[in-house]
């Protein structure tokens, strides 16, 4: 393995701090949270979408974010890899630490954060001009993280992890758009995994898929949590109950309740949570 491929990029990390990998390992050993947000507020223009959210997301577990539309759950997810900054009027207050490191520190580039915190979107979006293989390796190639024979090795690993290898190994050079919807979404997961992130964010990854493809994605998520910290936004309450260890309930920009999934779904401590998970509103 090349050093560029195994270690997260450190270009903009100041030398005084411990290396990313070290922080990550330490975090996993001591059960320090993978992500901890403190008083996180997000504004789009004058509209406040998130209101002083504080949460500790555990490493190597699946954390589900639930809540009615417009409650700020997608915005919260996108703040975790600074994707919300694509909206020009976006502004944030508070702090988010990734394995102890402030990802909004002045000297941290969003690009570096996004290499450590990958993302899968609601609508599968493989690049239409690229083959299946090129889609998986695109992050490694365009970030200069690997080349040559290392690329195919990483590609195979990522496709195996995404449970897609057996279906595509004979047609790696076919266009990505020739795959079915569920396969395309797993290809997007493979693409995100190929750059070896520490955290995987998923924004309703199965909401556009049929039940069978959804089941495959859910199985995959359960597999991946052995190696990855996963945060998933879902509208599907059964899905949250099936796959997540922790559940956070957001309502109107507030984090109403956060706890183990079994507690949230069986004996929530807040009335609003109970109303939502029992389907009385939202």
């Amino acid at each position, binding site marked *: 393995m090349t050093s560029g491929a195994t270690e997260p*990029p450190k270009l903009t990390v100041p030398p005084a701090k411990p290396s990313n990998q070290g922080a990550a390992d330490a975090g996993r050993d001591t059960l320090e949270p993978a992500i901890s947000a403190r008083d996180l507020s997000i504004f789009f223009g004058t509209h406040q979408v998130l209101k002083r959210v504080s949460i500790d997301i555990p490493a190597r577990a699946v954390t589900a974010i639930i809540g009615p539309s417009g409650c700020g759950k997608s915005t919260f997810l996108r703040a975790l*890899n600074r*994707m919300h900054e*694509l909206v020009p009027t976006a502004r944030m207050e508070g702090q988010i630490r990734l394995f102890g490191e402030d990802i909004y520190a002045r000297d941290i580039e969003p*690009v*570096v*954060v*996004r*290499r*450590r915190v*990958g*993302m899968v*979107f609601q*609508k599968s*979006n*493989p*690049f*239409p*001009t690229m083959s299946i293989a090129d889609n998986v390796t*695109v*992050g490694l190639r*365009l*970030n200069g993280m690997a080349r040559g024979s290392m690329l195919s090795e990483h590609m195979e690993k990522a496709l195996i992890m995404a449970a897609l290898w057996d279906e595509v190994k004979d047609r790696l050079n076919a*266009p990505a*758009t020739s795959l079915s919807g569920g396969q395309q979404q797993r290809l*997007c997961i493979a*693409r*995100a995994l190929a*750059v070896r992130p520490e955290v995987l964010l998923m924004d309703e990854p199965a909401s556009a898929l049929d039940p069978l493809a959804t089941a495959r994605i859910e199985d995959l998520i359960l597999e991946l949590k052995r190696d990855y910290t996963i945060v998933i936004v879902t509208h599907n309450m059964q899905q949250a109950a099936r796959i997540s260890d922790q559940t956070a309930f957001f309502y109107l920009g507030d984090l109403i309740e956060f706890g183990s999934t079994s507690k949230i779904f069986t004996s929530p401590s807040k009335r609003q949570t109970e109303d939502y998970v029992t389907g009385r509103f939202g």
Partner: protein
Amino acid sequence: MDGTYHRWRKFKNTFMQALTCLCAVLVVFPLGLIFYHVLTSGVGSVNWAFFTQLPKPVGELGGGMANAIVGTFELLGLAAVLGVPVGILGGIFLSEYGTTRLNWWVRFGADVLNGVPSITWGMVVWALVVVPMKTFSAWAGGIALGMIMVPLVMRTTEEVLRLVPGGYREASLALGIPHWRTVLQIVVRTGVKGIVTGTLLALARVAGETAPLLFTALGNQFWNHRLSDPIAAIPVQIFDYARSPYEDWHRQAWAGALVLLLLVALINVTVRGLTRDRFSTRS
């Protein structure tokens, strides 16, 4: 009562349908007329000599437009080299960078430039290039055509890149790929066929421009050996020949018009081929 009302409605429907159909046909009709007329008047003079020989002096029959044909391609090449990079980069800026306010002004400027009469470009380039250089030149002609191409290419590039779904940009950025690489290798690559199409259409548009070349490239009865000398071009040659009093030159002008028409048609057919390919890979 009811029956007459329905008949009246049916009549109105048929009448309006016929009217729209007539207008649609009216669009194609002039094209057919032009093509028929140019073909019948010009085909007799399109021969080997037309493509290989220089114009003959007044009074001598025969000769051709070899220098003007080559000159047109040289001018188009210069225009493309000067105009296409500016247009494409400007289009990328409009679509991927820039602020709403700045974009509004740039877009407004480009749209106004698109409407500027082409002879104005000729005068502007004459003042800016021909006068300081103290000579008409291929450079001046290429610059004039290139300047006409810039707003055309810029607006098509912008439109094409705006059609690239935002999901691809997000997917790329979420992989930690820097913005400029995302723009270049994801967004532009996805829209590249549209950009090529827009560029070719802009070339087809300026290929037949005459007015901007009159004060810049000027025209030339001989071969052009240096880009700083006047150069011949098919449209200018047609213009000169058509207003001459000589029957033979008139025939040559028709032949030139036919060749120019075929060149523009060829570019358009190429564009059609490209766009068809684009749709087939999409589905």
